[in-house]
């Protein structure tokens, strides 16, 4: 994939050089005719996670719409800030766009210094692709049959119950901390950084009392009766796991999913921005994209341009509250 894309890029570099010589690449015309060459779509996560399939689906549909190749390139690392930064710092010509998540766009700038973005003003919001809710599951032989059981025990025994998460301060950790904050609990989160798999494994082996993660990686264990899902951290029922109690039906309904978004660097020429936004709107509202989301456990929640920007600005405030709660708790 990468090697190919390099070859292709090399080929394009040659072509672009020729075009420049021929005097074809006046910038005004370039904006009107965009896109005339391959578009690179950066995914700031390693292949194999929940971010990869959705990016590739969007890229596939974007290719159909724009009639050029859209190359998906994984640029993982540093809690997704490397790949996200690569998009934000790219030349705003419409040929480099990418995926951002509510974590990489809104949470990381609060924790990490020196990133190229501090708020949603520092990049161009194009379209929201989907939400993916966090779920809480316990080993099938655990004594908690429902979320109420689990919360009752957590309340009676602060700092006793342990929940595995895929990395400290990942969204699935923050969601549990938000529950701690709202319900007055002290569930301890234990980070396992083996890409989510080890967090699930720790729950299966009974090393932790539960695991907070995402359905695509845990559904197999739930279906096989090895894990029992207690809760889904969203407002309404989760089609993929109808047994999970939506946190929206409890008093602690103020939660958040991980959101996936398409971003571009600031300063795109107006014509390009309008075309990219319009095309992305068509994609995220299409039946094909929606049925893909549904089958894979994502929740469709199309938000375009400024609506998306507003949502991310809202997350900023929520995350600040959780960070404050965690700091006070130390």
């Amino acid at each position, binding site marked *: 994939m990468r090697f190919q894309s390099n070859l292709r890029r090399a080929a394009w570099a040659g072509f672009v050089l020729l075009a420049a010589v021929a005097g074809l690449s006046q910038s005004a015309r370039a904006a009107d005719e965009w896109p005339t060459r391959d578009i690179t779509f950066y995914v700031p996560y390693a292949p194999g996670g929940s971010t990869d399939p959705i990016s590739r689906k969007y890229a596939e549909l974007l290719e159909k719409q724009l009639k050029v190749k859209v190359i998906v390139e994984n640029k993982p690392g540093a809690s997704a800030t490397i790949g996200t930064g690569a998009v934000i710092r790219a030349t705003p010509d419409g040929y480099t766009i990418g995926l951002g998540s509510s974590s990489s766009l809104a949470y990381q700038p609060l924790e990490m210094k020196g990133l190229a973005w501090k708020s949603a003003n520092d990049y161009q919001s194009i379209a929201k692709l989907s939400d993916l809710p966090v779920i809480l599951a316990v080993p099938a032989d655990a004594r908690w049959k429902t979320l109420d059981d689990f919360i009752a025990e957590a309340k009676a025994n602060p700092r006793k119950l342990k929940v595995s998460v895929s990395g400290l301060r990942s969204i699935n950790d923050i969601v549990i901390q938000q529950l701690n904050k709202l319900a007055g609990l002290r569930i301890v989160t234990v980070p396992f950084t083996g890409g989510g798999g080890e967090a699930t*494994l720790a729950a299966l*082996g009974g090393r932790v009392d539960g695991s907070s993660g995402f359905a695509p990686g845990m559904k197999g*264990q739930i279906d096989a009766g090895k894990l029992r899902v207690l809760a889904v951290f969203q407002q309404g029922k989760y089609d993929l796991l109808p047994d999970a109690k939506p946190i929206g039906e409890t008093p602690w309904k103020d939660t958040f999913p991980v959101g996936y978004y398409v971003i571009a660097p600031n300063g795109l020429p107006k014509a390009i921005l309008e075309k990219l936004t319009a095309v992305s709107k068509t994609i995220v509202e299409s039946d094909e994209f929606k049925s893909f989301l549904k089958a894979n456990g994502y929740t469709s929640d199309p938000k375009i341009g400024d609506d998306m920007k507003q949502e991310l600005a809202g997350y900023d405030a929520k995350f600040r509250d959780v960070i404050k709660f965690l700091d006070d708790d130390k």
Partner: protein
Amino acid sequence: MNSLQGLLYGLQIAATPTNLLAAFVGAFAGTAIGVLPGLGPVAGVALILPLTFSLDPTAGLIMMAGIFYGSMYGGSTTAILLNIPGESASVVTAIDGYQLAKKGRAGATLTIVAVGSFVGGTLAVVGVMMFSSSLANLAILFGPAEFFALTAGGLIVMSRISGGTLASALLPMTLGLMLGTIGQEAVTGETRFTFGIPDLAEGVSLVPVVVGLYGFAELMLLVEDRAHAANRPESVKMRDLLPTRTEWKRAVPSWLRGTFLGFLFGLVPGPAATLASFAAYRLEKATSKYADEIGTGAIEGVAGPEAANNSAATASLVPLLALGIPFTPIAALMISAMLVQGIQPGPLLITQHPEIFWGLIASAYIGNVMLLALNIPMVGVWVSLLRIPHYLFIPLLLVLSVIGTYSVRNSIFDVWVLLAAGIVGYAFNKLKFQLAPLVVGLILGPNIEKHFREALFLSDGDPWIYVQSPIAVTVWLLVAAILIAGFIARRRAAFADAMAQESSL
């Protein structure tokens, strides 16, 4: 369905033209990826992931698995011929393999490796087929404390992996451990020692270090060796391509030991194939009848690790297929391929999608046969590469190493790491330091730290967690036993030496 019925069912699936082609493409691409220095199986599998979306899911997975175990065949080729490991699982193969090649046994060694890979791969498929459901639970028994024992104990045991004095191994190992602390810390994501360089946030990656330490350094040594630089290496005679009867005989027990060890490593999380090859090399040093020769060009030092890394690669299918939990980046990619196709990995895969489970297993048998058939005739070709004059060969390899390293992460920074590692490797060579412990330190260091900290998170800071499980205690006792046995053996040898000197006086 019992295993035999399953296998027959799987063979029907694997033997369809599409799936046979998929296995062949995987095996072929895997061999090529293994041979090219730098380009490793993870990059290779990532490369074809998008391709599999448009294939039938079984065919896609067969191809991905083929690349993985195929690369274990190819990776040792450059390690043996040129002292340049094609991927990290072949680092230890370079130690004895290159010495054997210098003795003119390159062809024989490559044949031993190809057959050993076949033995390791095939026996491991049998293991996967027979025991996958019961063995899957082994992984569940291992938590942070157990992994800490395994990795930290492993580090101690492997400090003497490549012979030489203790100091000549400990210094590079410390350097490797230090390099491993650069970048994002595994648990909190805090960056360390990056000096504001964004590329360092991801840490020093293994590929440029390995290719640099071994490959670049070796090329520099070749250039330095002016007397040889102008000459062609002497041609290898046909009969030298085949192992002698003794070589075959010596390889068999090593293959079996390596296969067994590799299989166990494949079942638990971690860089299984790489660790398995290191551990197998160490095991050969401890148990082989010819242990004294290991390090100076013994067939055991090649046969054991190469059977082990193939066996580990295949065994890592167990947690993937029976648990649906990825332990390696490649397994994660295969799970991604399943999810995109709407297949839910997990314990129910074998009943819901028997065509994938059994098809993949049956294709691994076929793939291993294909790989053997591909690799044995190639031995002659590879060996004849040695006859290319150095003034052509060295630049060619230099370019290939740089391209391979660059392509893994599209990172020019990695190319600088490659160059720096080359200089370090060259200096270490001159100063008679060992290189393998540096690689061991770099691989194990971050793992040790991660498991160490995860265990403390789990116990809420109570250090007794490290010795509270029977598995962890057993591992530590084993480590102690190996150390004491080694100490006694060295004292005895020293004593015998002293006696011999005295009697000669």
